[in-house]
């Protein structure tokens, strides 16, 4: 800790030397360390030890072709597929370079319109299904790239998918339960089903 006199002495040296020199050297040093050395070192370690995750957890089919990422949702809209969340990304749904939500407020008529359009599409594909629709199936996700739906949302779609493929509903329910991931320690996180994994498992049933 300084005495009064020492500090006054220090403040007599020209401001340029006491402020600008350390300002520039500290900024340059920390920029190189935190802006280049740190991210590049992290990249090297990540690429050497965890290349799969570091490069996007890509999913490859039997022929070695990339068909998606385990973490990123895709558009599914055929009656024979399990559908995912609504996606409000850019000009087309599930646009991986334009992430984002709808940002529609709870009282916005445009929200009710988007939700109603989804309900109509679900009803049209499965007119006999009168059960209440799980909310995540009619709302847009925050990222627009949500890979998951709730188990309720998967169950809701079973009658439609079963009819299209001529598979028993019980068999599909077992498939959903097999694909679903449980919350961590039974409590952290949500009971969810990865839609891409579910649809891939579905084609393997044939």
């Amino acid at each position, binding site marked *: 800790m300084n005495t009064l006199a020492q500090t006054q002495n220090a403040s007599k040296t020209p401001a340029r030397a006491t402020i600008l020199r350390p300002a520039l050297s500290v900024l340059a040093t920390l920029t190189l360390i935190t802006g280049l050395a740190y991210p590049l070192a992290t990249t090297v370690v990540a690429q050497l030890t965890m290349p799969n995750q570091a490069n996007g*957890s890509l999913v490859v089919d039997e022929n070695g072709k990339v068909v998606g990422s385990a973490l990123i949702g895709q558009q599914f809209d055929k009656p024979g597929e399990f559908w995912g969340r609504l996606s409000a990304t850019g000009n087309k749904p599930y646009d991986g370079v*334009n*992430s984002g939500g709808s940002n529609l407020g709870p009282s916005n008529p445009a929200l009710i319109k988007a939700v109603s359009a989804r309900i109509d599409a679900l009803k049209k594909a499965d007119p006999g299904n009168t059960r209440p629709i799980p*909310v*995540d199936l009619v709302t847009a996700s925050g990222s627009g790239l949500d890979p998951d739906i709730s188990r309720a949302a998967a169950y809701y779609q079973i009658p439609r998918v079963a009819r299209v493929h001529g598979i028993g509903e019980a068999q599909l329910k077992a498939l959903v339960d097999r694909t679903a991931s449980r919350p961590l320690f039974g409590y952290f*996180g949500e009971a969810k089903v990865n839609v891409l994994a579910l649809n891939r498992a579905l084609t393997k049933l044939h």
Partner: protein
Amino acid sequence: MNSSFLLLMIAFLAVLGLTVRPMGAWMAPMAEGRFANGAFARFDQRLLRLMGVDANTGMGWKQYTLALIVFNALGALLLYALQRLQGGLPFNPQHFGAVSADSSFDTAVSFVTNTNWQGYSGESTMSYLTQMMGLAVQNFLSAATGIAIAFALIRGFSRRESTDVGNFWADVMRITLYLLLPMAFVMALVLVNQGVLQNLSSYVSYTGFAGHAQTLAMGPVASQEAIKMIGTNGGGFFNANSAHPFENPTALTNFLQMLAIFIIPAGLCHVFGRLVKDTRQGWAILAIMTLIFVACAIGVAAFEQQGNPLFGKLGIDQLASALQAGGNMEGKEVRFGISASSLFAAVTTAASCGAVNAMHDSFTALGGMIPMWLIQLGEVIFGGVGSGLYGMLVLAILAVFVAGLMVGRTPEYLGKKIEPYEMKMVALAILVTPTLVLLGTSVAVLTGAGQAGVANPGPHGFSEILYAFSSAANNNGSAFAGLSANTPFYNGMLAAAMWFGRFAMIVPVMALAGSLAKKKILPVSNGTMPTHDALFVVLVIGTVLLVGALTYIPALALGPIVEHLSLWAGH
């Protein structure tokens, strides 16, 4: 609200509580400005001498403040230049051109002030070099600046009859290299393990499983994500921020991200207690923060779980069950559901982080109002790294002053007499942000350029503008993101709010630090009001809520409260 939310919050606070002492022990030597003699201390001295810094030379508060402002202004210039020149620089596989002048200016100010308000969309605007060497660097440096100021203010309390509040250069170097960098490196690798990207590749294109073409943005995400949370910065690598599966892929990363936001602000309370040689003082401050936080977080979860009344008529199931989270899922991710989205929203707005894992614009009227109000309280409930503690200490001084008036004694806090000069600085520091928020909102509401940005009709549109200025002036950075804010009007207005919200508050806080350091420390007597007991906690909570309520309830009544009432009335 349901039991899963309560369990999550309790687990979160319990883990956070366990970090307080170790974090305090880690940071206290930096705050004291000295390390035990040995190889490390020698390395530290030599490194600083290389920078032209003599760590043993202290600074007066004016010199400290000047150094801080010069350092931050130079940082802003560098970040501006990087954005403007990125087209010709390396690490740009997508060949992004220069960012526009007004957006670059807004973003430079935004990241230097620890706000990280983002008018741009990361994955379609910024080169990897700009992300790494521009944005992420300021994630480190703005955080270090905030912590340095907290250190200076703590020294104001702990030192007696001194003009020395520390050496800014030594503080920034030490905080960045010995605290933030090791934390960020470890966290980045954990994030990668869970699925966060860390590469320098160009974007990946393929034909998806169902036959739709898809392109995925890539990049060095994890290294930036880690410091984004640890430094309470909040600026996402991608537009969707922590809602993006490549930024925040699992329940575990979400938990870690929330923890990373609070870990330094909570630990700093303990540093405060250690330096004033009475750790109870630090725990009291932490208790104040925690109590307000818990009440607000429960509120958010309750309103979000309640869902949207307009959905009931459409035959939608919003009830929570073992099979679904239910509630208001618009703008939320299934892997986070209502519980982890609500808790994250409370954490990110209590602290001035501003990262989001769900879109606040789509929250229910009152579920979205609470995060906005947490911001408006001045980012003192944990708050930004450093800024949360110094903001809270300013309010604690106000509380002590009010108590002193009630009993007719000269108020003192930790043996430091609180006199007219200190109260002037406190008043200035408290009044800066409300002035910026309310004036800025009024100007935007009254001008065509301001109204043009609004995305949602009715009172919600007003909420979008109010949220934007609250977020900017209090250096939070989250948004009701429907607002189209990447316009010259908003870029200019919000940049001004961010800059003055940060530095016009820092100057009186530093003046306070300087003036407190000069004072004697009076011994505790019979008449001294204890500042570590329940009465003091209640008194400060009252002060925080009163200042926040009186300032903002009229404005909130025009936005979220009207929206809530009309929604539930069925309109």
